[in-house]
């Protein structure tokens, strides 16, 4: 039984490593890199890493990652959330340095590129979640309130990131990109179903009383 469990654990980690690693490796071998400066390259990869972290988030909070169930999974979810916000800062700052007018257009929703508003909306959703998570205790947010705020924002982050990424013609290879996006959507749908996030659960109320 333990043999099968560890084999399953290895398989899950291997799938995650390939799902995140393959798009990064494919992008790293893109011929486009030859024509880009180091800051632009860094900004692009920060974006790809951010998408990988968006996949990790539902897997952690759903307790699907072997070795990260329950409390450890939620704890890692917090740290990865912080890393995601940092990756987005690097992504946006790097693009700003590369071409200030294009980045300003994107941030002001005046960009001609159809993917920009999706990315910018996802960015703000990530920053809002990160800020709320930091202030959660200070604001005295109950688990139910937190979930009520976090779930719609999580959906915005996932949908925005996936559309943003799919519409971009850049260094990412088409199939590894589409596969990563599909996994992000699948993981998000699964965790939302498994945790029944749309239900007012008695268990949650119990949890909040226990914390107080």
């Amino acid at each position, binding site marked *: 039984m333990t043999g099968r469990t560890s084999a399953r654990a290895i398989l899950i980690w291997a799938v995650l490593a390939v799902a995140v690693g393959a798009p990064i490796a494919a992008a790293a071998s893109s011929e486009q890199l030859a*024509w880009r400066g180091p800051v632009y390259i860094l900004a692009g990869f920060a974006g790809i890493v951010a998408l990988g972290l968006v996949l990790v988030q539902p897997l952690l909070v759903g307790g699907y990652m072997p070795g990260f169930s329950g409390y450890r999974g939620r704890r890692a979810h917090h740290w990865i959330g912080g890393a995601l916000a940092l990756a987005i800062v690097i992504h946006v700052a790097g693009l700003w340095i590369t071409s200030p007018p294009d980045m300003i257009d994107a941030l002001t929703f*005046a960009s*001609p590129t159809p993917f920009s508003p999706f990315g910018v909306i996802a960015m703000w959703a990530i920053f809002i979640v990160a800020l709320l998570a930091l202030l959660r205790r200070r604001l005295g947010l109950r688990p139910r309130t937190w979930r009520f705020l976090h779930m719609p924002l999580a959906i915005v982050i996932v949908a925005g990131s996936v559309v943003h990424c799919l519409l971009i013609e850049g260094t990412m290879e088409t199939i590894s990109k589409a596969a990563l996006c599909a996994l992000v959507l699948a993981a998000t749908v699964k965790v939302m179903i498994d945790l029944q996030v749309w239900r007012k659960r008695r268990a949650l109320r119990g949890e909040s009383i226990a914390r107080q």
Partner: protein
Amino acid sequence: MAIVALNRRNLLAAGGSVLATGMLAAGTSGLLLPARADGLAPTESMSGGANNYRKGAAIVDRIGKGGFWMSGTVRRAGDGAPLAGQRIQIWAHTVEGQEHEPQSHGATLTDKDGRFRLEMPQIIPIFGQPHGHLAYDSGEFKTVFLRPVMRSPKDTSLEAHFVLQPT
């Protein structure tokens, strides 16, 4: 075939070709039917068209080592008459430099038929889209900035058309 089917460019190409057909039809009807060209509307600047513009790029025979062709026409709003000797400035992120760099910029003049054509280095995708920039900014007509997008980063030519309005 499965790889081709999964390529989103093919999906976009369908929509793009519909658009292009529509634009082509609109363009040719203006040329073929002078009576209707009477109300030829001026080209509006495209959003983001002026990004990384450097005013006063020199008129050149070719930008850099070439290999890619930017071409188009310049006509007058209203009657659609071709405008000769108009200066069109062109720049893009190419294999020889980024958009803002001086060597990525150049200008050319239209011929007697209002056509222009300038060889430049291969354009590559920047900020998620393979695109070029063109400007008419000489004062006689209202300034127009265009930002045409290539249907594929592998394309080796791109067109943009100006209909200018006297100032």
